[in-house]
């Protein structure tokens, strides 16, 4: 498959809104994690958005949820490349393929609590327009002025990564010429309590690949990218590898077999050799099992010298949005010529046999692999390249 032109991308996370705020946070080594903005009864650092989300316009009010408002911000921040794409391709030739794990769960859990405590749902709660996976698709299509095929991929923490692969196939097949891809996820109590029940949460800020790591942090956010058949690319989507572990619903294969296969599949699709990869943005959640399995897989496929960073300590694990946000971080590395520090990594776990360093590294990063792995044993590796 030919590389796709990424003609624009938008980004929100605990580090802020847009490219400049993220570059500032990453360069300064400043975590965006802090106290939880949603109700929980245990200690953990959480990556909430540090800005207020604008309300949707009157005509989209019935669809207004935190998720759809986040999607609206991401769509608005893509306005310029979208306007060019609408002129170049017809609206029905521009798809909307996004990923989320939570959909409208944040709105539903608040509404459900009110129903349990007071006997009725809050006014304005609408299951069909607010809870379902399709609700924010409607908002994005309306605001973007596009009318191509659209769906939400929901494969837990690989959701938004897989959206890039679907767009690749649809463009290669001639169904569409461009697509808004990426994903968005919100914080909610249910997710935080779920990971707490798995004893997976770090009470402080997570430290991926460190000998002293103690679990993950959850965050919210999203990133959208406009991918086109060709055009004035900021970066290229060179390849996507998609595999399954076929091992366990929530634990990775201990040797990282599925992760290894995903990276290998991406290299094969791109026609690249392992030595062509200059940097890996790791899934790197900060759990013992995941970090070791992923490091083994990276070492086996790409070698031990390639610089590896997990950015989860900046943003938290944004679940269905993580792959898209980290795609954007990979694009920043290609465009800016530096990669962020691995926050909290010292002392590096001696079982981690890849290069993870606590300082900003400068250089030419022409090809970056971004990994995402998920419940269900689902694996995605994206390759982002310089145009």
């Amino acid at each position, binding site marked *: 498959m030919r590389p796709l032109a990424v003609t624009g991308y938008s980004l929100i996370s605990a580090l802020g809104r847009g490219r400049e705020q993220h570059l500032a946070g990453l360069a300064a080594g400043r975590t965006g994690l802090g106290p939880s903005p949603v109700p929980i009864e245990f200690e953990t650092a959480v990556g909430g958005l540090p800005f207020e989300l604008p309300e949707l316009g009157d005509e989209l009010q019935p669809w207004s949820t935190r998720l759809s408002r986040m999607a609206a911000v991401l769509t608005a921040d893509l306005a310029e490349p979208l306007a060019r794409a609408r002129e170049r391709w017809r609206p029905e030739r521009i798809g909307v393929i996004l990923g989320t794990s939570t959909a409208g769960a944040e709105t539903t859990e608040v509404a459900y609590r009110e129903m349990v405590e007071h006997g009725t749902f809050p006014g304005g709660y609408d299951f069909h327009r607010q809870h379902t996976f399709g609700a924010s698709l409607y908002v994005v299509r309306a605001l973007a002025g596009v009318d191509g095929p659209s*769906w939400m991929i929901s494969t837990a923490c690989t959701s938004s990564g897989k959206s890039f692969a679907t767009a690749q196939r649809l463009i290669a097949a001639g169904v569409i010429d461009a697509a808004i891809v990426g994903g968005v996820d919100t914080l909610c109590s249910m997710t935080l309590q779920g990971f707490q029940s798995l004893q997976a949460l770090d009470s402080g800020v997570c430290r991926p690949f460190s000998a002293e790591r103690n679990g993950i942090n959850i965050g919210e956010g999203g990133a959208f990218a406009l991918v086109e058949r060709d055009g004035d690319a900021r970066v290229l989507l060179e390849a996507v590898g998609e595999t*399954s572990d076929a091992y366990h619903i929530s634990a990775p294969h201990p040797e990282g077999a599925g992760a290894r296969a995903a990276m290998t599949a991406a290299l094969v699709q791109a026609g690249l050799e392992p030595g062509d990869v200059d940097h890996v943005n790791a899934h790197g959640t900060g759990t013992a099992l995941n970090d070791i399995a992923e490091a083994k897989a990276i070492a086996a496929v790409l070698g031990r010298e390639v610089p590896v960073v997990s950015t989860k300590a900046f943003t938290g694990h944004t679940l269905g949005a993580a792959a898209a946000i980290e795609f954007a971080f990979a694009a920043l590395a290609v465009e800016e010529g530096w990669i962020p520090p691995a926050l909290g990594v010292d002392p590096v776990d001696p079982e981690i046999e890849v290069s993870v360093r606590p300082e900003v590294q400068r250089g030419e990063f022409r090809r970056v692999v971004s990994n995402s792995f998920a419940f269900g044993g689902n694996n995605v590796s994206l390759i982002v390249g310089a145009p």
Partner: protein
Amino acid sequence: MSGSDLNTPGDGLGAATIVGVGLWTPRFASAAARAAGERSDEELKPVGLAFDRRNRRRVSGLGRAMGDAVEEAFVGAGLDPVTTPVIVGSAIGEASTMIGLLDSMWRTREEMSPAAFTVSVHNAASGMISISKKNVGFTTSLAADHDTPFAVLLEGAGLVAASGGPVVVVCADEASPRSLMAEGDTNWDMIAAAVALAPATGQDGSGLANLDLAPAADLPTIAPSEQDPLLTGNPQAGMLDLVDAIARGASGRLRLDRGKGRGYHVALQPLAGAGGSDRGAS
């Protein structure tokens, strides 16, 4: 992806040949039972045929229904489940499991079950199918409200075109989650419906029917045979209609959303070797 040799108008969104079907509804345990008119007098429980014993215990009722439909499509098409990708579509996903988690948070104030949390994700069934079948290849799970049947078929046709191999797609939604819906909302029963897709063949090729996906158009469509409002209200009713139309050997356009989505159609043409009693009934 276009170019199937259909008599009905296709618009080139995606083409493939259907080589197998599967179904589960509360009164029919399979597409074969439905085609034979073997309606159960009692409400059935899905078995989860695609899952190994361990995962069958873990998976929800929705997942078990998907598993029954997927297994029938695999077996009917003679496909290898170790290598054939599975695409799952569900508008609402694991709603019952999620409501259980909400109850533990807000109603009973119990510790959340980690096992329930891990199977609350939308891709629980697709993941457990891949684990049960030891399939280390592609799988995915998606949602598009009443356009979910179109979305899984287009995702499936795209994957068939890219890989040159077969794909099984399944659409399923459990019974409407009444505790989250407003009074007066349409309720529905569970449906799981699957089709196995392979690269498009000519009219003389093997398989059940050729399909060509088409955008919204105000054209006559094959009349759906299912009229039970408890099935037609399900967001996946369009996939049930497709399985029914294939069983009947119907040809022509079939709208995939029962009038509640964006109007996508499939142009359907039965193949020479396929059975059915309804040829040309467009």
